[in-house]
């Protein structure tokens, strides 16, 4: 029993660095929800049930654009499909479905870097820290938004986009194929958006798929490896973007 408790406690300790990365972004998510007119309990439900930061930000953005829920869910599936690869890797070491829900980019990174035997309790410990940081930060941000002056609330509108830029920049400087993916996605988003042929959510899906295809083509021609440097799961920035 003591041995099992130690495994879990070790996981909690390993998860501490994730807390420092998650809390600021989770607070930002709570504020973004507040700015979008979503009540604090809805912000908390997003974080508690979806537990996928980038998709949560994306969903709030799409909601404010009036995009249909099914298109938001489809975009969520597209963005989070990389977790399929991460779970595959973790499952080969710890074949316990109980740890599946808590697998994020950062949990995957910490667990993968753990030397030696990786136990289910250790992974659960890492996931517990990540989950508490994400949900706690979200509710803090959502509640703080209630008391902020209007000027700051307006300025906080850039938080979401600043986060996207912050996550994107390190990837752009890594490989020109990533630049191609981003440029193609922007061009498709603006081009199809201006044409007005499709709903905004469909345009976004086309932009994501077209951008990924362009990046893959350029990456193949350039003889480069994966945009994440060969590790599974492309979203490498530690601080956010599950």
């Amino acid at each position, binding site marked *: 029993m003591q041995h099992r408790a130690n495994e879990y406690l070790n996981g909690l300790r390993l998860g501490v660095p994730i807390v420092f990365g998650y809390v*600021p*972004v989770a607070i*930002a998510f709570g504020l973004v929800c507040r700015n979008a007119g*979503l009540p604090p309990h809805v912000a908390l439900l*997003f974080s508690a*049930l979806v537990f*996928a930061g980038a998709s*949560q930000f994306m*969903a709030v*953005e799409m*909601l404010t654009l009036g995009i*249909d829920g099914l298109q938001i*869910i489809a975009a*969520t*599936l597209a*963005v*989070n*499909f*990389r*977790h*399929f*690869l991460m*779970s*595959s890797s*973790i499952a080969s070491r710890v*074949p*316990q*479905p109980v740890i599946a*829900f808590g697998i994020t980019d950062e949990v995957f990174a910490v667990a993968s870097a753990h030397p030696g035997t990786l136990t289910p309790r250790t992974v659960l410990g890492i996931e517990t820290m990540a989950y508490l940081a994400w949900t706690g930060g979200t509710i803090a941000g959502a509640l703080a938004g209630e008391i902020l002056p209007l*000027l700051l609330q*307006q*300025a906080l*509108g*850039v938080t979401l*986009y*600043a*986060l996207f*830029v*912050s*996550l*994107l*920049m*390190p*990837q752009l*400087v890594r490989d020109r*194929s*990533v630049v191609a*993916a981003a*440029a193609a*996605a*922007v061009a498709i988003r603006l081009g199809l958006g201006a044409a007005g042929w499709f709903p905004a959510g469909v345009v976004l899906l086309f932009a*994501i798929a*077209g*951008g*990924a295809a362009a*990046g*893959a083509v350029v990456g193949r021609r350039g003889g480069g490896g994966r945009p*994440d440097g060969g590790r599974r799961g*492309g979203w490498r920035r530690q601080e956010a*973007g599950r």
Partner: protein
Amino acid sequence: MSTMTLILGMLAATFVPRLVPFLLPAAGNPPAWLAHALGYVPAAALAALVVPGGFTAAGGNVGASVAALAVAAALSFRRVNIGITLAAAVGVAALGIVLAGTGAG
């Protein structure tokens, strides 16, 4: 679709890719070309999400919005902590709104 239904749908969309490899280990090996392309999905999604909304995010003020995103880009390029980066971007946006006289006052 209600917000609760949306959240439950997103729960399914995020949980299923996480769970399937544990239940069906053989499914966790997609074709190489697909695995390669999937690696570019996050970057493509981020880029597609920034435009055009990012240009008017600071209370509709284009200058303040662009300045804030430029600061975020510069700081993240320097690998500054993301909390500091976001705080700096919000600060620049607030300053831009005040200077332009479009703030709440």
